[in-house]
């Protein structure tokens, strides 16, 4: 490694889209009998993957290899699991377990040596039970037999790992592996997210393995923009009424003779 390669390329930010989260399947009574702990009701997989989904496999994300910038992912499971700290040093960065309860999983991502970056920590709430829209359109959680029919539960968070002023050699490595861009339009169900917990979104997430797409980003931006317009309109109204009130107040003060 020459000293030239250890120069930081100033003034740029380079990011890699990743997703983290879990997929959970309800076990049948027969499957449960085979387990060492038959009280476990679900089999789940928690993972860190590239955001784009591959056409070849039926999983959320994971189209690209991410080992060129991620060296290790540590998953800290609930203490009741044997050996709760699971270090995964090679792709795929995932842990599959069975269980009966939801809990918070601490995920630590360690980058490759040449990145010269510190470990980052994130949290994922393990999701086993089907989503319910908690927004304005309340939907009650379906009974277990119906939940089994609905298929696996997916809970995934899109995120972007941002490297600022990367080292030249690390930048070279990154540009050697451009990420697959997300599909422009919806091809598969849309991953459900609590920040968009409408009935429509819930319906859109049903019917198979979801996939992240660009439309989701556009949709969210539009939603934020709509909210902003609403806020601005409200503000305009208040400002107008404030003006009226000021005039009223002035009138009153005049009346008081101040």
């Amino acid at each position, binding site marked *: 490694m020459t000293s030239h390669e250890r120069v930081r390329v100033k003034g740029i930010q380079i990011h890699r889209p990743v997703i983290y989260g879990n997929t959970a399947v309800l076990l049948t009574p027969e499957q449960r009998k085979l387990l060492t702990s038959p009280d476990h009701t679900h089999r789940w997989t928690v993972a860190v993957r590239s955001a784009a989904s591959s056409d070849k496999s039926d999983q959320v994300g994971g189209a690209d290899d991410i080992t060129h910038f991620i060296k290790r992912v540590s998953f800290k499971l609930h203490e009741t699991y044997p050996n709760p700290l699971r270090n995964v040093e090679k792709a795929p960065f995932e842990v599959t377990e069975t269980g009966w309860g939801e809990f918070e999983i601490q995920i630590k991502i360690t980058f490759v040596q040449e990145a*010269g970056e510190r470990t980052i920590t994130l*949290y994922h709430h393990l999701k086993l039970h089907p989503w319910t829209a908690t*927004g304005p359109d309340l939907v009650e959680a379906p009974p277990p037999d119906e939940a089994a029919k609905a298929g696996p539960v997916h809970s995934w968070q899109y995120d972007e790992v941002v490297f600022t002023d990367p080292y030249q050699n690390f930048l070279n490595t990154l540009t050697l592996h451009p990420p697959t861009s997300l599909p422009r339009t919806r091809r598969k169900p849309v991953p459900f997210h609590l920040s968009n917990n409408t009935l429509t979104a819930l319906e859109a997430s049903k019917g198979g393995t979801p996939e992240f797409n660009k439309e989701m980003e556009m949709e969210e931006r539009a939603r934020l923009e709509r909210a902003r317009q*609403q806020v601005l309109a409200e*503000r305009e109204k*208040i400002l107008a009424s404030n003006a009226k009130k000021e005039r009223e107040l002035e009138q009153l*003060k005049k009346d008081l003779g101040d």
Partner: protein
Amino acid sequence: MAGASAADIRGILSLPENAAPGPSQMRKPPTKKPEGIPRELYALIGPSAPTMIAQPAKPRFKQKPNLGGGGSVRWEERPFKNPARTDGLVLKHWVKASVDPNEDYPFVKYNVKGPIYNYTSEEYVRLLEDSSWTKEETDYLFSLVKEFDSRFYVVSDRYDFPGGRPRSMEWHCQDLKDRYYSVCRKLVRSRPWSGDDASKAQLLSSLQFDKDREVTRKKYLDSLENRTPEETAEEEALYIELKRLEQTERRFKLEREELLRTLLGVESGLPGLPFEEEGPLGDPRKRKRIMEHDSATPPSASTPIQPRRVLPQMPQQSASSAQYDQLHCIFRPDPRMIVPSKSAHNIAYLRSGKMPYPKQSVAAKVTQVLTELDVQQTRLVMPTRENLLAYESLIEAATQLVEAKKVSDRLDQDIRVAKQRLGLRESAGETQERGEGSTQETVPMEQDEEDGGGQDGQRAGSVASSRSVKSRRTSQRRSLSVSSVDTMGAGRAQKRQKLS
């Protein structure tokens, strides 16, 4: 303080002592103090110095060797025969008389002849044919090698084969060696070998000769020897310069590293210390960018080298480089927008970790506004750069809204106070009811201030308040339903603390 004498100490310890008590001993001339012991110390320990003190005795030298000093050696001039000679010449030399006169000449053992290789004509025809050598010339070469005992410089000097092709003078010697050794190798290989394979291989390797390599080696040596003094001096100067530069760079690096460590600690992003210069030479990519920029704009407008205070113009991105950046998810922030941070390097982060937050003073009310709009404050579905910007402007707008509301609330209060005062002033001539009404109003007014205007009746017509009813309804529901929202929020709060 006077030092106590050895006798005093002996007296105190009531040691039996040959000498008389102190004063008398003082008078007696003390035994001579040995060299190398301080006077005070000697006064304490007395003449019976412990053995630990080095006794400066007369140094004992090694005994002088007896170089036959006693009697002188007799030398004799004797005749001797050198068995290496064939002519039986007798010469004389001086030897010690003690040497046995019948002993062989001692230098015979150094007269060793290398193995001489000979070949028959049949062998020559079968193995040793070479287009550039005749048998006669090869024979001549072998005879010379034999005569001069493989001293090839002599051989090449004396070499005078009549009718031999003119050989280049320079590499004559190498040519001869090449021919001789190649013949020898072939002979060794073809002849039956009595010893083991290892010794044969060893012999073959000793006969190895690579003419080309030898020629190259000699050429190198020649060029090395033929350097002019100026060239040598220049080479030396360059070498010293290189060493000096290396040293300077190393020192500079160390100092910089030290400084960064001291100032920033872990935040400095060490190790793998970046070594870079400011300015247009720093980054080849940037330099190229600036050059592109140069060609695109008139030279007067371009500003690749500028005083640092002046903001450089943002280079226009070409379409292809924008495409490249998009493919590789590269973003080049406007240098004017970069807030100089204390740390040398911004560490890698998750985009979602940089969610903007409302100002502390209005945070609670902004949260309320966002909740009314069904916007989650903890996470975005797709926390991309653009979406975070959109979110940030939403927060800004909400902050402005909250501030406008605050103004509105203050105005409301002022109006009420003014009306009240007006009412009091007019109450003299007014009915009792009016007075009661105004006194009642003062109480809820104070409550309003504490409530933060959330359930303020004055805003009955507004969208926000109509939504606030709904928000209360949903928040109740959330607390009843599965706790995933709350726990996610808690996790995020934890993370926030870590990030900050």
